[in-house]
């Protein structure tokens, strides 16, 4: 179901290229770096999953692509290129032409992400009118079309309904319809299923997948749920403590992780065949960006951490072959266990609601 066989070597230029992106946030206690030199790319028609626990910096990374972080308290460094064009530092007017048109976003809280004071029809049509310059009528027709597309029943009548008249799952579909309304080349989905219950999660995911295949969009999928990743992503990018710890193609990373944190994340995904056994969770908590440990940022929680090796210098992110990277200095000595991509995917799908007891649901943004 995934285009994993696609050779990466001859891949065309990436659609989205994030290059050494750092984000500093100013607070009363000073400036903290919440995203630290993050680099990865999303190719055309590719789905990349950005994975990590709450506070890993994954949402901040995704928001900085469209300049959605509050400018007064954040400073962004590095580069975010879309189709070769630099997005960081664009004037608000220029950025607004990209937002919602070339790149659309779906957010994690469907209950609060729609404006309660406007009908859903108005909220979709407004975006179409702005980017396509069409008449009110044409924009309205487009809204019906996309609502229909994402499976909102009797779309034409529902156009006049307000968000509070929809269920959570339906609202997320409305969000998806809104995102698709201008046929974006890239959709950034920030935990789009986290706030939904299991059955709806599965529905929304398969819907997203189907739409992606139909329109050939790229998707940057932000999640803490590796079960979802197995189902949807071609590539996976793992973040911890504000920087990348491992990247690679999903099947390979799942089968043989090269970083203990990835292994830990995989271990905390409930497996189909472990029914009845206790769920495993990663001990300890993610360090805050103000108090990062010396050396490897994961070492205080890492079962393989070695004194004098892991707690001295921060390891660099290094290529480990096959287009993969890892930030673990001991990766050569360790035999980390993964899960079969196939069983992992299926097992995780069934167990999605329990996706990570150690991974708090809400994400810091």
């Amino acid at each position, binding site marked *: 179901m995934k285009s994993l066989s696609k050779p990466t070597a001859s891949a065309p230029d990436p659609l989205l290229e994030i290059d050494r992106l750092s984000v500093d946030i100013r607070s009363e206690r000073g400036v903290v770096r919440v995203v630290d030199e993050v680099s990865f790319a999303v190719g055309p028609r590719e789905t990349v999953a950005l994975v990590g626990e709450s506070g890993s910096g994954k949402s901040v990374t995704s928001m900085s692509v469209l300049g959605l972080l509050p400018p*007064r308290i954040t400073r962004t460094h590095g580069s975010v290129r879309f189709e070769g064009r630099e997005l960081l530092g664009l004037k608000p007017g220029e950025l607004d032409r990209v937002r919602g048109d070339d790149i659309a976003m779906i957010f994690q*809280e469907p209950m609060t992400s729609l*404006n309660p004071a*406007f009908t859903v029809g108005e909220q979709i049509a407004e975006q179409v009118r702005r980017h396509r310059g069409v008449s009110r009528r044409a924009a309205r027709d487009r809204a019906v079309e996309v609502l229909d597309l994402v499976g909102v029943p009797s779309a034409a009548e529902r156009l006049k309904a*307000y968000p509070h008249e929809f269920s959570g799952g339906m609202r997320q579909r409305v969000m998806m319809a809104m995102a698709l309304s201008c046929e974006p080349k890239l959709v950034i989905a920030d935990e789009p299923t986290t706030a939904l219950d299991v059955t709806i999660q599965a529905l929304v995911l398969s819907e997203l997948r189907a739409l992606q295949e139909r329109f050939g969009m790229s998707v940057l999928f932000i999640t803490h749920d590796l079960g979802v990743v197995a189902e949807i992503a071609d590539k996976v990018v793992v973040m911890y403590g504000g920087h990348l710890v491992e990247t690679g193609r999903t099947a390979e990373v799942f089968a043989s992780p090269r970083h203990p944190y990835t292994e830990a994340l995989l271990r905390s995904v409930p497996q189909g065949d472990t029914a009845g056994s206790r769920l495993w969770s990663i001990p300890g908590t993610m360090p805050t960006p103000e108090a990062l440990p010396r050396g490897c940022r994961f070492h205080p929680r890492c079962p393989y951490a070695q004194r004098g090796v892991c707690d001295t210098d921060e390891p660099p992110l290094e290529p480990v072959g096959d287009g993969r990277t890892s930030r673990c200095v001991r990766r050569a000595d360790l035999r980390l266990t993964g899960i079969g991509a196939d069983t992992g995917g299926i097992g995780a799908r069934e167990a999605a609601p329990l996706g990570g007891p150690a991974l708090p649901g809400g994400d810091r943004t």
Partner: protein
Amino acid sequence: MLRLLARRLLMSVPILVIVTLVVFFLLEIAPGDPARRAAGGEMASAADVAEARRRLGLDEPLWTRYWHFIEGLFTGDLGQSIFSGQPVLSAIAERVPVSLSLMAGALTVAMLIAVPAGIIAATRPGSIADRVVMLISAGGVAMPNFLIGLLLVLVFALQLGIFPATGYVPFEQSPAGWFQALVLPSVALGVAAAAEIARFLRASMLDVLDQDYIRTARAKGIGVRSVLGKHAMKNAFAPVLTVLGLQVRILIGGTVVIEQIFNLPGLGSLTVKAVFDRDYPIIQGVAISAALVVVVTNILVDVAYGYLNPKLRAA
């Protein structure tokens, strides 16, 4: 929406009944004998006073007089001024346009200042612009309107001569003159309301700008004007409406002072004169007119609430 309106109209009936009761009996127990005043004051003879009492219908039992009073309200007969003999309704009708013009002017001034100020302050919290807005609005709230009025007259009428210091020109006579005459009193009356509304709008706006749907709106690329003016404003304005309703009530009281300062022939100056004269019918008429304005304002506020917040329409 219509149901909401009908329900609010019905709810205002008991309010108005209570107002008439209070207005009627409050004046009944107030000191001073209107019959004696009408007969010529302290010097009048007992016979003259009794005659005046009969003429004014003040010798009838309390409840009968209250009944006449209510009957009068429905037939538009609010009695006559004890002093001038002019029917109360026509005395009020003559002056209502002045006071309503002044209040509309004050509200316009308030909104013209408060909306941009509130938005500017909320979009840049902690900035110099925000602090300036907050400082000025603190001053605007604290400064009494008569002081502002006198200062405005001093600078803009006496020093610069841009606007007339006092007086009123009816709209029918000269729209330009009407506008000129109202500028200074409207500003004097509206500044305090502007300050109050700006503070509320800022707080409400700050809250709304933190909401997820604002982030969604920004991600849609519809431009900062639409994000603020449309998506944020429609949500932020609902709490401000409550304040706006309260401000209308305060403005009614404010017109009394401002009309004195600017020598405007409105309800305020009518009231002041009536109070000194113990001209009960006029006072009653004015009080009921004011109550009507408040009731109508409340209904408008509720309807506007329903427009801004669709969840309330069904409730």
